[in-house]
């Protein structure tokens, strides 16, 4: 089976380092990177949880963005933060991707 070999550029190493830093930040339960179709491409959680979070948060982010743009077409969504009793979910959206981080703030 042919497996691709990637040259690890310094920029890529930086991405890895940042991801690791976020993942090991105090209270962080999980980190997920999702593409524009809602498919997770990087995760620290188990498969079923990842798929659940990715699907639901992707839909919510789309709705949030469309809300912002409906209210003012020249505006756009920059950050989404959901504070619940148990966790805080942070979503940094983009045209192509979503970065989702789940944190337990009481830790």
């Amino acid at each position, binding site marked *: 089976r042919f497996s*691709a070999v990637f040259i690890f550029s310094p920029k890529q190493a930086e991405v890895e380092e940042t991801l690791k830093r976020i993942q090991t930040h105090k209270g962080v339960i999980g980190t997920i990177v999702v593409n524009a179709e*809602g498919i997770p491409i990087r995760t620290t959680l188990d498969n079923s949880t990842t798929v659940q979070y990715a699907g639901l948060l992707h839909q919510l982010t789309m709705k949030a963005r469309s809300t912002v743009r409906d209210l003012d077409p020249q505006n756009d969504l920059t950050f989404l933060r959901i504070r619940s009793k148990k966790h805080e979910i942070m979503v940094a959206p983009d045209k192509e991707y979503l970065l989702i981080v789940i*944190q337990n703030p009481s830790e």
Partner: protein
Amino acid sequence: SPSLSTSLSVSHLTYLSRSPVCMCLPDYVCVSRRGLRLGMAKVTQVDFPPKQSVSYSKETQTPTCTQTHTQAKPAEEEEEEEEMAEPKPAEESQEEKADQEEKQEEVPPKELTEEEKMQLLHSEEFMAFFDRGSRIVERALSERVDVCFDYSGRDLEDKEGEMQAGAKMSLNRAFSDERWSKNRVVTCLDWSPQYPELLVASYNNNEDAPHEPDGVALVWNMKYKKTTPEYTFHCQSAVMSAAFARFHPNLVVGGTYSGQIVLWDNRSNKRTPVQRTPLSASAHTHPVYCVNVVGTQNAHNLISISTDGKMCSWSLDMLSQPQDSLELVFKQSKAVAVTSMAFPLGDVNNFVVGSEDGSVYTACRHGSKAGISDVFEGHHGPVTGLSCHSAGGPVDFSHLFISASFDWTVKLWTTKSTRPLYSFEDSCDYVYDVMWSPTHPALFACVDGSGRLDLWNLNNDTEVPSASVCVDGSPALNRVRWAHSGREIATGDSDGQVLVYDVGEQICVPKADEWTRLVHTLVEINENRDEGEELAAQRLVA
């Protein structure tokens, strides 16, 4: 003669080849000139699919990201058009395309392969996105402000209610090892006398792994969050009982199914025993369910009893032969099949044993009457666990002991009487083990085959347990052991899991008057027992 009309009415399904003249003539005329040549007609079938009603799944009509995406896929749509074999009018194909677009959105997006994911993660767009996104997320993560904090404390009230209800017993740790404890039954538990955070658990054989050693003993550590055992020991035969050797903090003693007593040392680098007793008639040849170190620092022995009633006493320095041995027989004939053993607090000579026949016996090690003394009958099934009262205090209750049995009950006894004082009948399954709290005089714990761990407080209620917890998945709980502090309780189940529960203060910490209250409770129990017996006797007479 055949009518002309019938033969001509089926002409649209068949046609006659070659001679057009034949077509107009009736059949019988053609037959006489030459055979009719019939051939299959090429049937043109035209299928019109039912008209599909177009429905919209979006709530708003404003363009969103997903819609722009489907518009950006013209190439795929063209491909699909070509695949459609049936010829269609132009309008219908347009509608179908729209319907298929809808269907495409409803269908879950296809999975990406690992290579595709890696490609995305290495792309320029991703780097740019990640640079911005991670920056914001890291700032947000570091903000610890809780904007929802309520200074009135109203939101905490709900939490406290939950905490109160669950505060009786809460799961602290669950210990299990994928390789060494899975598929094995926890046969024994013991807390280290020297390091209160260490707990040794022994396991029997793993039927699914015949090449792995049959006997395993793992030392677990409560102090750290590490999920792997502190020490892993194994031996050739299933370990049925294990204990930390009191006065020898580096040694763990194990009694095995083959009758061998093994000794592991955590100073050696080996996982196998450093010493083993011989498999000979002078030692044990039957499974050893009870091992215990009794005595003082300067004068102590390892006591072991096997299921054939043989009791041996050993010196831990020399396991090649027992210092002393004794056959436990009742009335000079019946060997006692010992399943459990307990020494009262402070006693090195007198002890109690439980047997497979359902009876409990008192015995002593030395003296002219060495051996079985009295029989305590009451259980209807094999005795699985015994515990002598050990909570020292203003009043001495060391004559009390409790026994657990297959007959679904736990019975309370006193060495002063051969009839049980009380029978606790709240369980609906074999009760596998029982143990007095080391600190609270009226509290004991028992575990049964339905996954229940019950705490009974004699001063509160003798009919129902004061606290109870059912383990997730209801595995049969085989062993229960209070920690020396009396605040934690460990239980081992038939799936190889060791669970440690924290017991709420209101349950496990004794108040100053518990001892005097227990005196009164025992008086009541005694009176009830005598009354009960009188009534039973009267009924027999009448």
